[in-house]
């Protein structure tokens, strides 16, 4: 097994697939798919060997690029018939290995489903295919003064199908919600080829809240064929306050004080010195490089409302010990302040051969403590770490820097990350706020959940996908797998 397969869960489906008649599968898929809709061979498959979590690589058996719903349905039906595992894939920007192929499995790319089917400015909704990029929805809605609120930093590239599978968030979700708060309806293909509609044009539907179950299910319950999302009116004005702090503890406390003052900023983000330094060199956003941490707090609404809130924010930040406090003078400056934050991952990518992005979420009041502990881990593991996070939500993105070509560094980075995730659970939080479990955090699921809770997840999975063919080995470890991890000790060890 090459090192790229580390962390891959096995699941019985993957075992069964060893018995698949590959030639027969290819022939059957060719009959279903359009010309050039089936990729095979090293050169064609290579682009699919990983997602944004590049430390994990696995070549798939085949990649299917269907163009119609009927083709997706036929592919899924075939997969169930012959026991071929399927991994749905959007843009492959996921950071937890959700779209990493499984060995002897098919990658089902939704890349051809790029149509925005309808923008209804009166109902404030957009009906889109799963391969539509997040930002494309807002662009299509812009002429009506509307936009799609969840804005992951990857929004130029990531697809709505991927957003739904991960329940993605963005810098504005403290006020405007996550994907789960902004999707009204899904059309979903189940593994047997059945197509179901969940949710609808109304605000609720009878029965169990299957929308909530489907959103964030990491491609393990069904394949999203179409979504109706809510559109939000663009605020008349948005301004951002940037505040510098001499130490991370005061910055962390400032976050709690803003909330205590009854303010819910449209965005509330924090970056530490290592992150601002990386970003400043990349986008020249004008960040204070002498600060130990900077906070970005956005206010939006009517001009009167924004003026009132900005004044309140400034007062709280100054009382919390902020040094420099600057308010964006115009839209260009606001975008510049955000450009740095949004480019944080690629900026760090420039100063290190590889990095791993963690995604733990903790109570806000423990942010400062967590940052102090991360500094200690950084010394212990001998690896640098830059911290960027959605402070308003307590969602941390420590970026652990390493070089995969240096023997042992990948393992150290994994160990470092595991410590952060376990500490997040200990602090009353979670191992993942928005990036998903994927293959990366499957082991830490055994820390966060009991065997009984994991069994219930398995039962939910079986209600949708009894043969465990959709994205096997991801997100939900089998109880057996967890006992093995517990026996082998430290997470991250092979």
């Amino acid at each position: 097994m090459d090192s790229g397969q580390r962390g891959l869960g096995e699941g019985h489906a993957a075992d069964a697939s060893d018995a698949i008649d590959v030639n027969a599968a290819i022939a059957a898929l060719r009959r279903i798919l359009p010309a050039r809709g089936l990729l095979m061979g090293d050169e064609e498959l290579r682009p699919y060997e990983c997602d944004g979590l590049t430390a994990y690589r696995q070549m798939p058996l085949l990649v299917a690029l269907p163009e119609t719903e009927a083709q997706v349905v036929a592919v899924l039906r075939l997969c169930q018939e012959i026991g071929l595992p399927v991994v749905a894939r959007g843009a492959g920007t996921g950071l937890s290995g959700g779209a990493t192929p499984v060995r002897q499995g098919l990658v089902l790319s939704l890349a051809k489903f790029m149509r925005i089917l309808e923008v209804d400015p009166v109902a404030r909704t957009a009906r889109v295919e799963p391969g539509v990029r997040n930002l494309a929805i807002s662009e299509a809605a812009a002429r009506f003064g509307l936009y799609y609120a969840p804005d992951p930093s990857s929004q130029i590239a990531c697809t709505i199908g991927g957003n739904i599978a991960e329940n993605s968030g963005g810098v504005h979700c403290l006020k405007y919600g996550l994907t789960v708060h902004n999707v009204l309806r899904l059309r979903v293909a189940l593994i047997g080829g059945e197509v179901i509609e969940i949710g609808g044009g109304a605000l609720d539907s009878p029965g169990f809240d299957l929308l909530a179950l489907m959103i964030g299910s990491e491609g393990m319950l069904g394949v999203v064929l179409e979504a109706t999302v809510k559109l939000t009116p663009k605020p008349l004005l948005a301004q951002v306050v940037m505040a510098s702090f001499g130490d991370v503890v005061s910055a962390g406390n400032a976050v709690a004080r803003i909330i205590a003052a009854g303010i819910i900023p449209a965005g509330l983000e924090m970056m530490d010195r290592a992150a601002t330094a990386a970003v400043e060199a990349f986008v020249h956003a004008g960040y204070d490089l002498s600060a130990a941490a900077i906070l970005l707090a956005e206010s939006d609404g009517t001009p009167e409302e924004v003026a009132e809130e900005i004044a309140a924010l400034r007062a709280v930040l100054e009382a919390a010990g902020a040094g420099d406090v600057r308010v964006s003078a115009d839209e260009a400056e606001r975008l510049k302040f955000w450009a740095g934050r949004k480019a944080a991952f690629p900026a760090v990518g420039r100063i290190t051969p590889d990095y791993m992005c963690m995604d733990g979420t903790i109570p806000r009041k423990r942010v400062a403590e967590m940052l102090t502990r991360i500094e200690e881990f950084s010394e212990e593991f001998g690896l640098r770490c830059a911290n960027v996070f959605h402070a308003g939500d307590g969602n941390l993105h420590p970026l652990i820097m390493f070089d995969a070509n240096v023997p042992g560094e990948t393992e150290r980075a994994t160990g470092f990350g595991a410590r952060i995730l376990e500490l997040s659970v200990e602090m009353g939080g979670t191992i993942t706020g928005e990036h998903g479990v994927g293959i990366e955090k499957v082991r830490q699921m055994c820390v966060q959940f009991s065997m009984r809770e994991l069994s219930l997840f398995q039962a939910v999975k079986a209600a949708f996908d009894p043969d465990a063919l959709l994205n096997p080995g991801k997100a939900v470890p089998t109880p057996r797998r967890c006992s093995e991890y517990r026996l082998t000790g430290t997470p991250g060890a092979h």
Partner: protein
Amino acid sequence: MGDFAAELVERVRQAAAAKTPLRIRGGGSKDFYGGPLEGEVLDTRRHAGIVAYDPTELVITARCGTQLSEIEAALAGEGQMLAFEPPRFDQAATLGGVVAAGLSGPRRVAAGSVRDFVLGVRMLDGRGEVLNFGGQVMKNVAGYDVSRLMAGAMGCLGLLLEVSLKVLPLPAAEATLRLEVPQGRALELLNGWAGRPLPISASCWQDDALTLRLSGASAAVAAACRQLGGESVADGAAFWLALREQRAAFFADDTPLWRLSLPSVAAPLDLPGAQLLEWGGALRWLKSGAAPERIRAAAAGAGGHATLFRGSEEARAEGAFQAPPPPLLALHRRLKRAFDPAGIFNPGRMFREF
């Protein structure tokens, strides 16, 4: 009042072993809602109390038997609220019932529904196992979102022991306005306004009177009042409370009350009986003796669904909620079996099928 989880576990385990149906009940304020009541009463009221509340975390955690009024008083003391404005219908209403029934009040259209605010649950499944999903933090995508699935599940999937909810600051200012407009025009106005950045936090149309609530920063509320016109309503808070609690005159008779959940843009429905509209047109209350099939067909035709919200027991036994199409219903059955294999929780309360 206190931690009586162990007793509840014992009751559920015994019931599971004996396959005795249980009827989970808090304050009984929603006994009228859903299918007929069946099974031995499992009273949750003793398992009560606020477990954790830290205003700067915007989260409250409380046991299922805690009265909603106690929770709301604790929040108000810190200038915060449950933004989905759940109806109580009775002082006795408990947190468990609020979440299981999944009902939200006037502010739902602007702030979101119960499930949007559920962050985590501690629950008992049908085997009597104590399970935790979600947590006390704002974002959590570890595992399937079982805690949100429990909202509105009518207790059919499990017994909620404890729930963590996101809370929000009370708005700095609120104002209530009233305009005279017929229904069609009211819907046009509401949908138009919803597409603009206006701080409308609730709406109610009845008998050609459209009442609006504005919430937010004082400057924004004042500016919106000027923009929208109409006359100012003096006792706005009392009006919205009466609407939320269904104590308004509209709700005070024995005609069957239907709850129609529709796209807000749906044209006025041509059905006999009086109507009251909330949520910018997305929620339409209908008092009507018309045949259930006719009402359900009209709702479905408009892209939504109808629930017999208050009606005779016989009528509700025919199905209070619109049953989903066969493949979805089959999925419901499989999920029910995953959570409650012996089928002991609230049989028939949601659908006749389980």
